Structures are given as structure tokens and as C-alpha cells.
């Protein structure tokens, strides 16, 4: 074990909640600090730059509505990921599951002739199923054959991406779009209401918050949640307790992927009102949701906060472009930095420095000793 002066690095038994919170906040602040340095390198005073950003995103109703709008998909997908991570399923495929949900909902909106409010309800149901189906193959491969879900979910993101492209360039290409690769606009019954004067499709936000509550309920109040926590912490104990590992994992993954699918529904029904290019449909929400879930450290209610944080990061892109005349890619820099600092701060939770007492110093050998090795 590493020693430095009279101090020794040793494993920490169990970090307190306060420490976990402090370390997470520290990682976010460190990322924002480094971003400030970037502002400064581009000739902006970091303090005024941040002030401008805060004013535009949090200082007025419309700005904040934009933050909330970007929070929605992160919240839905993030809550799902928290559930999947609880079951030790490392789903990197929320991006693909969002797209699958969007496709399923668009299919319903374009081709199922029912009226309001059934159309929207049907779209959400289809989107949930679409996402779940996209999670099914990796779940089965992991449960049955032990294939790493990390790679399979990642690969399916691109299958979904090209799937959406196929649809909007091919069979679903709109008749009235003048050759643009988009589907026809949905009928109004498939449009989610927005808060007046904003693009905030609040029903989806509400759904996200409810889902976070539902997942908290599931994890703490139901037998399925109990099983999830057992198998997430110790698969061997889960087997001993008689829990069916494969079935439980698969079930949780389907719910988690379904939640990401709901995020896709929100984007098409609340914002675009048609199926659009995958890069417009999901601005990497599936990947950012991983940061959201990791920052929340398994707590579904904390996801509400972390999704808001990353939603804010996402919304700064537009502000930065307008006020600082810097490209919107800065949001990727901030997200990436948050994730890196979060990882780099892990050892603070796992280890601690301890003063080494005298008795812990090894007893010197009693014989004349010659150094070994060469």
C-alpha cells in the first residue's frame, strides 16, 4: 500500500452520504472550472461568461423552459439507466433505445387512425415497447450466453441510427417535404401540448418525474426491487435466496430500455412532430444519460437533479453560440469533463489517508540482511 511520510493510503470502509455528495459536486465544479479556463483562452472573462450563461438559462422563463426541455429525455433515459445499473446491466444503448421508441411512436402517429387522446396514449405505449424491444436482444444475449452488453448495446445504437435513416430516406419519407429526409408531419392529435410560448412539452416532463418516483417505489417497496438490489450487490446471494437471475435481469432491462423509448416519444410528439434525422432527434441524449445516471449514484430521485444539471449543460450550447460566439460543441466538452472528473474522483471514495501509528511500522529483522534481487 502506498505510503507518504507518516501517512498511508488505505481502503475506506464505506463513504458517508455527505462525502459522496461533496465529491460529486466537486467533480462538477472542477469541470466547470476547466471550462472557464477554455472561455478565458478564447478571450472571454470566465466570470462574465458564466454570468451571461446563467442569466440566459436560469434568469428568465423562456431560458429555463429550454433547460427543462433538454432535461426531459435525459430524465427518462437516466431513470431507466439507474434501474439497469442497479441490476448490473451496463446499458450503453439508451441512444438506440430512444431512436427505437421514436420510430415506434412515429409509426403509430403516421399509420394508426385513432383520435385524441388515444393516439398519444398509443404512441407512448408503442414507444415504450419499441425501446424495450431494442433492449431485448442484448438482455437475452447477456442472460443466456454471457455476451457483454456493453458492446452489443453500443453496436445497436448504430443499427438504430441507420434504421431511422432508412425510414426517412425511404418508405416513410414525407410526400409533402419537398425531398427533405423527414416523415410527413403528424396529425395534431399526435402533438403533445407545450407550455405557452415555449417548446416545453410538459406532459413528458411530468411523466419523467412520475417515472423517477415509480422507480424509487419499485426499488424500495416491491419484491422485484428487493430482488434487484440483492442481485445488483451480490449475484451469488441472489441465487442462494432463490431469485431467478436471468428472468429478473431481463425484466429490468426491458423496463429500463422502455423508459429510454419514452424519451424518444417525447422528442417526436412534443418537439419535431415528425420523424427526423437521427442526429437531430437525439443530440447524444442516450450517452449524456449515462452521466446523469452515474452522477445520481443509483438514486432515482437524484436523477431529477442530475438530469436538470446536464439539461442545463445541454442548453448552454445555444447561449454560448449566441453570446460568446463559441460553437455549441462546448457542451460536449463540459459533459466529457464532468464524467472524467467523476471517474478521477472515485479513489477519494474508495481510499483515505491514515496517519500511520508507531506500532504499524514493520518490526526490523534481527539478522544481518542482504538485499534480495539484483
Amino acid at each position, binding site marked *: 500500500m502506498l505510503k507518504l511520510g507518516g501517512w498511508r493510503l488505505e481502503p475506506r*470502509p*464505506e463513504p458517508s452520504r455527505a462525502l459522496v455528495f461533496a465529491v460529486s459536486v466537486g467533480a462538477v465544479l472542477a469541470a466547470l472550472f476547466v471550462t472557464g479556463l477554455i472561455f478565458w483562452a478564447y478571450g472571454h472573462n470566465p466570470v462574465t461568461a458564466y454570468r451571461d450563461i446563467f442569466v440566459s438559462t436560469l434568469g428568465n422563463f423562456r431560458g429555463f423552459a429550454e433547460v427543462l426541455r433538454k432535461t426531459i429525455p435525459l430524465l427518462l433515459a437516466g431513470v431507466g439507466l439507474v434501474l439497469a445499473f442497479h441490476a448490473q446491466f451496463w446499458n450503453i444503448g439508451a441512444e438506440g433505445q430512444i431512436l427505437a421508441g421514436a420510430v415506434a411512436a412515429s409509426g403509430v402517429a403516421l399509420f394508426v387512425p385513432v383520435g385524441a387522446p388515444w393516439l398519444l396514449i398509443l404512441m407512448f405505449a408503442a414507444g415504450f415497447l419499441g425501446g424495450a424491444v431494442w433492449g431485448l436482444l442484448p438482455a437475452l444475449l447477456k442472460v443466456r450466453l454471457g455476451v457483454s452488453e456493453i458492446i452489443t448495446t453500443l453496436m445497436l445504437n448504430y443499427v438504430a441510427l441507420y434504421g431511422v435513416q432508412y425510414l426517412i430516406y425511404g418508405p416513410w419519407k414525407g410526400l409533402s417535404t419537398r425531398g427533405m429526409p423527414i416523415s410527413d408531419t403528424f396529425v395534431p392529435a399526435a402533438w403533445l401540448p407545450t407550455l405557452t410560448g415555449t417548446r416545453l412539452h410538459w406532459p413528458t416532463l411530468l411523466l419523467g418525474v412520475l417515472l423517477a418516483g415509480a422507480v424509487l417505489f419499485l426499488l*424500495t*417497496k*416491491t*419484491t*422485484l*426491487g*428487493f430482488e434487484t*438490489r*440483492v442481485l445488483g*450487490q*451480490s449475484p*451469488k*446471494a441472489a*441465487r*442462494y*435466496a*432463490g431469485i431467478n437471475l436471468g428472468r429478473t435481469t431481463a425484466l429490468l432491462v426491458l423496463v429500463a430500455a422502455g423508459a429510454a423509448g419514452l424519451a424518444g416519444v417525447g422528442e417526436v410528439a412534443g418537439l419535431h412532430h415528425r420523424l427526423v434525422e437521427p442526429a437531430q432527434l437525439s443530440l447524444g441524449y442516450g450517452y449524456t444519460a449515462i452521466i446523469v445516471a452515474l452522477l445520481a449514484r443509483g438514486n432515482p430521485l437524484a436523477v431529477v437533479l442530475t438530469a436538470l444539471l446536464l439539461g442545463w449543460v445541454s442548453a448552454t450550447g445555444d447561449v454560448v453560440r449566441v453570446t460568446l460566439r463559441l460553437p455549441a460543441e462546448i457542451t460536449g466538452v463540459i459533459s466529457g469533463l464532468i464524467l472524467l472528473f467523476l471517474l478521477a474522483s472515485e479513489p477519494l471514495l474508495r481510499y483515505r489517508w491514515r496517519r500511520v501509528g508507531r506500532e504499524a511500522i*514493520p*518490526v526490523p*529483522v*534481527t*539478522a*544481518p*540482511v*542482504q*538485499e*534480495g*534481487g*539484483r
Partner: protein
Amino acid sequence: MLEAPPAPFPLLSAHALSKRFPGVVAVDNVSLELRAGEVHALLGENGAGKTTLISMLYGLVPPDEGYVSLFGEPVRLRAPKDAIARGVGLVAQHFMLVSRHTVAENIALGLPGTPFFRPTRRLKRRILELGKRYGLNVDPNAYVYELSAGEQQRVEIMKALVRNAKILILDEPTGVLTPQEADGLFEVVRRMKGEGHGVIFITHKLGEVLDVADRITVLRKGAVVGTLPREGADATTLARMMIGRDVVLSRVASAPPRPGLVLELSGVSARNDRGVVVLKDISFRLREGEILGVAGVAGNGQLELAEVLTGHRHVTAGSVSLAGRELGRASIRETFERGVAHIPEERNGVGVVPGLSVGENLALRHYRYPPFSRGGLLNAAATQRFAEASVREYGVSTPSLQTRTGRLSGGNIQKLVLARELSERPGGAVKLVVAAHPTYGLDIGATEQTHRMLVGERDRGAGVLLISEDLEELFRLSHRIIVMFGGKVMGIVEAEGADRGLVGLMMAGGTPKGTYA
């Protein structure tokens, strides 16, 4: 047999080595000498300190006190590579081989003086040469994963020989071998002796000690019991030294078992996950109010026996009947419902989930039945009541029911497991208790309490199958003791007035007639 010329100093000597780990003295003031051309056996039960001792000889662990000399010079071994450079080779129980490499690549890895390009080319000749000299048949071009355990062991020995090891430490080398392979190994060891090497041979099997050793050092509880020359040793003496006869605890008084059968196994066989037969034709009966001990050295089928009875493993032949009803392919859940209590070997991570609370762990098996849950919804109040009652009844000492179980002491965790396993279940009371090493690592107080609880179950009329490596415990609690070796029942003895030497002998694969299986 060839005698090597006497060397002026021993190849290796350990001078008063001691090693403490938090709470235990693993090795206590052990001195040891290995001469050239000698096989020195280290004999002892599991936990006797053999592994810690060789870790110090090989530079894996620094001693707290004492030192090691090699070829007469005191040395400080900071890492295995220091030991390797000074002519020490270790063949560990778990082979340190890269299974997807060829034999030659494994041997070339980290070997000084190998050429950059085609590092194994010249080495292959050397391997074949040494193989001839020592009777070590290994194909340098074979991939390790294609090799049997015995062949892999030969690769490990070859690794040491290629590095000019004069001292070879073999840690439980026959554990993974067939009898034929073991004979082959002994032949190699004899040839190495003839070439002037010294071999430290660690084992708990009496038979092979008498076959191959020149001197025998017996360890118990970290200390040397004695060192005997081969000529002065016999199986009974060694078994006594190994197990210890000084502490004889009084037997726990017991009524004779009742007539009702709890468990009957006839001709049971089973395979492990890799398809190897680990239980062979096991038959026995367990009556109500009886404690049946299962003795044996780890890895001889005892745990698989527990798995078969608790639904973790299905039999490939024979039948298991629980309270008169066939167990068949019952799931883990069904065995629980049918009254099997399971005290697993691994407490942390199997018996309890360290990250969950005391209350949650108490409900680990009951949570899915009413009143603990209804329609998939947990009933916190019922769980709370059950947990409170359990903690009180079994004396689990915990700050609260919300405390993370991982923070409890081993004794309290075991009490928690017992409280949960011995409790009523939907199918009624516990009929069979399967306890695997229930007191391993516990202090005396917790051990006593665990014993009392098992005895209580017995007096209530349940049957108890007690798997343990602690013979004292088995003799103290059991009515009868089954001795297992190599997946078979070597014999069943009455605990009262049993000959411990005989039990030790059977544990080492001997039969009462004195031949070795």
C-alpha cells in the same frame, strides 16, 4: 536411490518466522531447514499456516519476525522475482499459467536472456532436454488450455527448472491429479532429488507424505508440532500430530435419534459445473433428532453434497428423499419451502448481502411470501416485526435494523443467518439443517452459541447435516460422522468413542484396512 553429496549449508532455512494478520497469528515462530537432495514435507490441516509460510519463503509476504536464508546467506525477498532469481521455484495450487499461450511461451515469459525475435525457438530444445532428464513430458508447442491439470503442473515445474531453481516448493500438488498423474509427479520429485535439488512438499494427505518425503514437519495453528524423519513416522502418529489430541472437548449430551427419517440418499452422483463427477454413489440416512457430521478435507465433495440437498445442484444418478418425499429437481426456492435450512459456507456475499440492512437480510428468503409481501408489494411492518423478533431471539447485536450488515462482526452475521434459516417458512418448520462450516472464523463465544442453536434444532426433531473441517466440532456434536474423500463416502463412524486416527486416515484417502485409495 541416489544420494547427493552433503552440502555445507542447507539450501533454504527459515529462522523463527512469524506472521500476524489482524486478529490472527498465521505463522508463529516457525523454523525449517531444507537440505540438498531432500524432500521435506509440510503437513497440516487447512488453516495450519502452510500457505502463509510458503508465501514468506517465496517473497509474496514479508515476515513480521524472523528471516529466510538461501544457500546459507540471509536474504530479504521483496517480491517473487527475488526468490526466482535466487533459485526458488513455486508451484502454487492455482497454476499461474496463461492458458491461451503455448507451453514454450509461458516458460519464456519474463525469462532473462531470451532473444527478442522468436524467444521460444532455442528454449524448446532446452525444454525437451530438461524433460528427458527429469522425466517431465511436456510438448512445448501445445497450448496450455489443451492440457490436463497434471500436464499444466509439469509446465509449472518446467518453468522453475528452466530458471535454474534449486529449491522447488510444491503446494498441495496432488490435489488436482489423478492417482496415475500423482505417481508420475513422485517420480519427477525423486529425479530432482537425485540431481541435488531440494523439494518442499506441502500436503494434508498422509499417504503421499509417507510415499515421498525424507523428513516431515507437522504444522498446527501456525506453529511447528514437530519434525520427524521418514523412518520414525507412521500414519497414526502423523494424524494425531496434525489434528491434535490435547484439547478434547466434552461431547454435548444428546438423546438418541428418533425413528423418523428426515433424509435418505441412495446412490447419489453429481457433476460439477465443468462436468467432472464430484459425488460418487453416496448413500446414507439421517434421522429426526440426529446430527450427522460430514468430515473431509476441503474439495472432496462435501460442498457439492450441500448443494444437492439445497437445490443448487441436481443429481445425475440416485435419489434424494426428504421426509419421505422425493426431492427430484426441486429448485432452491422449493427446498426452502419444504423445510431445508441452508447455512452456506460463505457468509458474506452469499449468506448475507453486505450492502443491505440487517432487516433486509433477515427477510432475504421470506420476502416473497405473505405476510412479508402481497401481490409483489413489500410489507415493511411485517418485515420489521420479524426482524425485531429474530434479533431478540438470536441475540444479534446490531445498532439498528437499518445498519448495513457488512458492518457486523462475523459472529453476529452468522447469528443473523441462523435466525433467518431456522425460522418458520411457508411450508412449516425446518426439517433439515444443512450447515457448511458454520463456525469457521468465529470466536469461542459465537461458536458456542452456534452449537447451541444446532443442538436446539436437533432436540426439536430436525435432522442436522454438519459439514466441517474441524474434527473437534464434529466429535463434539455429531451422533455419527461420514468421512468423505474424492467424492465418495469412505466410511461412517459412531462419534462416541471413535478412533480419531482412523477418521484422519480416512480423510486422507485411507481405508480402515490401511490401504490408500
